[in-house]
């Protein structure tokens, strides 16, 4: 077995999860690295919540296994006797280091302080320590001094933030969030986004699901799409950066040491999204209407469905979808130089 240092935080193999006789999640192989914000997107019923519950060891898969830091949390290892012990260890580790915040806040009857202090208390903290942790967690979610309020008298956005504070009071290494902004207004959504950013900056690994693509693009280090319970490659380039300038025609978005032209829009954008099928690869610069032309080196090419996915390093890695025929014709292969062309209007800013 690999050492705990090099093992990914979570790794899933040959996983099948069933719900009421229906397979809701099928994962051949998937891993989550430490310190990364992973955002899960997909339709309702695509298996996002199931995946989060599996990672937290709240449900067991029908087949396959989930490993946390190299130790099985649940799955095939369970059958064997020694496997059961390892699974207990794995589950204990998951319980110790990670916590899931459900989509609906599900606060307990009583005060906010009771809610937020519950986790530390049940894990053996003394009353005073639990209260201190609750106060700190409430401060982090922007609700300082809310301890004595009744949980039933909070607004929707406050409830969601208290639910978040209840998890943060445990100082988790891994925070699992199921649609944290599903039931809140725009202002609360921004607040929650800031909290997640802050939590991630403090070194906590975040794995969250959402329907809000804007939020997904802005927060993710990695975007994972679930299609009917199967993880699928996201066919978009998600470029983090900032607006370097703007004129009457274009906004200039700087990512790494590359500047790309985007449709002129006012706003505090942090992400540019560029669909992989909007990129044209050529050997020589094209004489065209497209306003972005970047020179780069092909670093990787692999099949994706019936097409090929080429990764071109233009200062930032850009993924492009091309047909096999065109890949062969223009000689797209690792190490080959090429030009990436795309229209400014293909870029969406978030």
């Amino acid at each position, binding site marked *: 077995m690999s050492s705990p240092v090099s093992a990914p935080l979570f790794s899933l193999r040959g996983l099948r999860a069933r719900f009421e006789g229906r397979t809701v999640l099928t994962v051949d192989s998937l891993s989550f690295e430490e310190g990364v914000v992973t955002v899960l997107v997909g339709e309702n019923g695509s298996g996002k919540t199931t995946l989060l*519950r599996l990672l*937290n060891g*709240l449900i067991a898969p029908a087949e396959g296994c989930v490993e946390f830091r190299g130790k099985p949390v649940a799955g095939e290892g369970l059958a064997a006797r020694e496997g059961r012990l390892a699974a207990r260890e794995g589950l204990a580790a998951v*319980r110790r280091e990670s*916590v*899931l915040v*459900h989509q*609906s806040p*599900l606060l*307990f*009857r009583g005060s906010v302080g009771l809610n937020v202090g*519950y*986790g530390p208390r*049940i*894990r053996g903290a003394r009353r005073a320590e639990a209260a201190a942790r609750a106060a700190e967690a409430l401060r982090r979610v922007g609700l300082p001094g809310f301890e004595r309020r009744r949980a039933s008298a909070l607004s929707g956005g406050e409830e969601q933030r208290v639910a978040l504070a*209840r*998890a943060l009071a*445990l100082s988790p290494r891994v925070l699992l969030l199921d649609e944290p902004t599903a039931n809140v207004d725009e202002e609360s959504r921004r607040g929650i986004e800031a909290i997640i950013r802050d939590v991630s900056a403090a070194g906590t690994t975040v794995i969250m699901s959402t329907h809000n693509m804007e939020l997904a693009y802005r927060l993710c280090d990695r975007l994972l799409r679930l299609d009917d319970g199967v993880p699928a490659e996201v066919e978009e380039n998600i470029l983090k950066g900032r607006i370097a300038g703007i004129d009457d025609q274009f906004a200039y978005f700087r990512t790494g040491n590359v500047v790309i032209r985007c449709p002129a829009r006012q706003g505090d954008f942090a992400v540019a999204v560029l669909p992989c099928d909007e990129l044209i690869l050529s050997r020589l610069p094209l004489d065209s209407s497209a306003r972005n032309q970047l020179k780069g080196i092909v670093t990787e090419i692999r099949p994706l469905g019936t097409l090929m996915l080429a990764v071109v390093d233009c200062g930032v890695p850009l993924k492009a979808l091309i047909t096999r025929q065109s890949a062969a014709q223009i000689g797209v292969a690792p190490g080959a130089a090429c030009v990436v062309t795309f229209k400014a209007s293909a870029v969406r800013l978030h």
Partner: protein
Amino acid sequence: MTTPWAASNCSRRTPCVRSRATGVLGRAFELLVSGDREVWFITWTSLRFSLSSAVIACIPGIPLGVLIALRRFRGRRVLLAVLTSLMALPTVVVGLIVYSLVSRAGPLGSFGILFTPRAVILGQAILALPIVVSMTASGLSGLDPLFPEVLTTLGASRGGVLWMSVRQARGAVLSASLASFGRVVGEVGVAMMLGGNIRWYTRTITTAIALETSKGEFEQGIALGIVLIVMALGVNAVLHWMVRHE
């Protein structure tokens, strides 16, 4: 078979049949306020039996109800339906069954508990159990199905989940306990068949009323009836108060 019914001693009273109703009521109230030892002993016996049996039923009943409410398992609906029907279990049937178990020839006859408080409490606890389980389960059905999971992810053990669920639904759990008390305090069948209505021993309010009425002596019956009604109303008032304050 000898009936263990002890003869009632009411020689100091005049026959009641000819008294006017107000006279009977008046004497009943007199019995209550004058602190007639027997009336209050019977009241105390009733309370003791009912409280004991309700508590004994709650000890397994509440956790069972919580488990049925929170777990999803095969046959759960059938179990709930059966429990709900058992809430209307005829008292004389429970009396009959327990009687056949604890009578001298029965499998538990060697314990010799027939016509003792233990037999009454056992029978009444059996009556109360389905009420506690069923009402706890239905009371907790209002909890979100994800509630146990929220507790688990925060670090609660199974026992912790159970305890917190009871705390969350404490109104429902208290109602269940009080309803079971209400059921057993007013029943006659079990108390009569298993207790035998033995004076200064197993005579409860209900068995005493039955006996006094059959003898045509109404004062003590009415006095005890008033106590019983006050108890029943009191339990109901507490129930209503709790439901309103939950």
